[in-house]
């Protein structure tokens, strides 16, 4: 094990699979000589060639659709859509084609594609480059949604996603690319659909995703000074969701806060909150609290952006309000 950044972990996962399996190839804008917008594919074009590391025109629909076509014929395309914000440009291909192929073909066809991009609010990327609407894809039957929060998770989950036989959306929070953590040099997978308790606690269960996991951990440190023991669960796979880990935790603590960078209405947080209310009602000693981004486009100016997305203060306030 050695310490590497999440970016390096992603690169290792991709390289591992490209080397191991000739049917794996990548398509996306700027992934070739440029090495991708955040350098996720640095050196790949030189190593694997133009066929397998394919720069594409700005044709998201055609590229996602082409990935689907290649996948149903036995290949494993990994598509880089650059920013989650650009997924809607290919929405029909994702939601009506990829997500539904296995089901509506009665199981005759499968599309093992991975759709990757960065997501989330960071620096001053503005309304079209800062979004977190992964809940749209959770809402769509037939898609898996994966969000790592550590380098270790990033590598194992990405290898797992590429080896999965169905469409997976794999999202990389921009603020975490430089985050360091211990990662094995050898290949390993993390099963999709398995959460991890990032920090054990006794008084409050929190569920957080992506960058919010780190904010939740910082809040847990501060709360500890106030005598509140916070458990932080990272679902890692948002769908299919590891309900058991979350419900067992609420059974133990009786208090629940969900922290999500997406919006409140119909967000991932809304789903998990409902789940806990439905299936752990008897264990709850306080109302469920949700902390989410205010329901406005993510503004450009950093002070406003920081106001909109969940900050430590709001998270701590939510924890305090039920303990």
């Amino acid at each position: 094990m050695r310490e590497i950044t999440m970016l390096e972990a992603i690169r290792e996962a991709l390289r591992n699979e490209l080397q191991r399996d000739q049917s794996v190839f990548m398509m996306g804008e700027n992934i070739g000589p440029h090495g991708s917008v955040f350098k996720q594919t640095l050196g790949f074009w030189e190593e694997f060639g133009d066929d397998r590391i394919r720069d594409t025109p700005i044709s998201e629909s055609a590229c996602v659709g082409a990935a689907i076509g290649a996948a149903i014929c036995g290949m494993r395309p990994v598509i880089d859509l650059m920013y989650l914000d650009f997924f809607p440009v290919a929405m029909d291909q994702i939601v009506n084609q990829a997500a539904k192929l296995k089901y509506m073909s009665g199981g005759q066809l499968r599309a093992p594609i991975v759709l990757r991009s960065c997501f989330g609010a960071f620096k001053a990327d503005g309304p079209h480059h800062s979004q977190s609407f992964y809940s749209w894809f959770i809402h769509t039957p037939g898609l898996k949604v994966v969000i790592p929060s550590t380098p270790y998770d990033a590598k194992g989950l990405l290898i797992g996603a590429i080896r999965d036989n169905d469409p997976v959306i794999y999202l990389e929070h921009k603020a975490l690319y430089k985050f360091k953590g211990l990662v094995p040099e050898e290949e390993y997978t993390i099963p999709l659909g398995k959460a991890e308790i990032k920090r054990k606690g006794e008084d409050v269960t929190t569920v957080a995703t992506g960058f919010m996991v780190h904010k939740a951990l910082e809040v847990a440190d501060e709360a500890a000074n106030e005598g509140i023991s916070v458990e932080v669960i990272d679902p890692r796979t948002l769908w299919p969701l590891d309900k058991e880990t979350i419900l067992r935790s609420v059974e133990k603590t009786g208090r629940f806060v969900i922290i999500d960078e997406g919006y409140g209405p119909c967000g991932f947080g809304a789903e998990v909150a409902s789940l806990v209310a439905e299936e752990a009602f008897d264990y709850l000693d306080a109302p469920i609290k949700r902390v989410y981004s205010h329901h406005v486009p993510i503004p450009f100016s950093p002070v406003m952006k920081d106001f909109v997305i969940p900050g430590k203060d709001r998270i701590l306030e939510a924890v305090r309000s039920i303990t």
Partner: protein
Amino acid sequence: MKICKEEKVELYTMMLKMRIFEEKVSQMYREGHIPGFIHLYIGEEAVAAGFCGILREGDYVVSTHRGHAHCILRGADLGKLMAEICGRATGYCKGRGGSMHIFAPEVGFLGTSGIVGGSIPMAVGVALQAKLQRTGQISVSFFGDGASNNGTFHESLNLAALWKLPIIFVCENNLYASSVSTIRSTSVKDIAVRGTSYDMPGTIADGMDVLDVHEKALEAVNRARSGEGPTLIECKTYRFHGHTEGDPGLDYRTKQELKKWREKDPIQKMKKLLVSEKIIDEKGLSELEHWLKAKIEESAVFALESPYPKPEEALSKL
């Protein structure tokens, strides 16, 4: 183009099979056996049938909401096709897809589609895979005039030409996207010219003449197989029924126009040719028709005798 007698009979037989099948589907729809919408190919048979005999096992065809004929072209089991249209458990997709979402990969048919233009990119992907893995396969994407105005059409043609993919784009221009005519929707008179925008040949075929389609198809298939890249073929054709069954198609078309096109019926045209060239006589034609009707009747009986899926199968793991 030299084409032997047997091939002419094959083309005719394929068109007639498609026609009889679609007419049976129409009848079953009127009798209440088919849930949902159906979009029939009656009148357009020369387009799909034109590809008969030149596609190989392993080649893939991707189609539209009006796709039963393309499925038949690929040699689909008529019983499983009919059963799927009727929502039965024995259908190709176990009743989950229906007319607009039929997949028969075992015969190289990668689907009808409920989204106009939605499956064109997938056809490009099949061709991309064929090129990357050097399989020698080709991909044929059928779509209508409506789809040629959709973003996916433009993106797909650009990509296919850029990467020189073994694909044929076949635009079945039947002059109407549902009720909207090409005059009111399409900025060019001949969709084939759009091939030039994407640096590929754009050919026009008489979509009511199976021999003309066959000739253009063969050229395009040879181009694709020899690595020369994609072709756009615009087939000028016409559907005799409305957009869907139940739509007479007369509030946006005139009876005169319909009559004019019915006089160009591709099956009648080919029938006359077979008789005039003494390839097959009236008796032979009659026997062929009876034989095909019996086959299609069989498929209808199979479908109607098949069970519906159990309701809970909607959630069963595949």
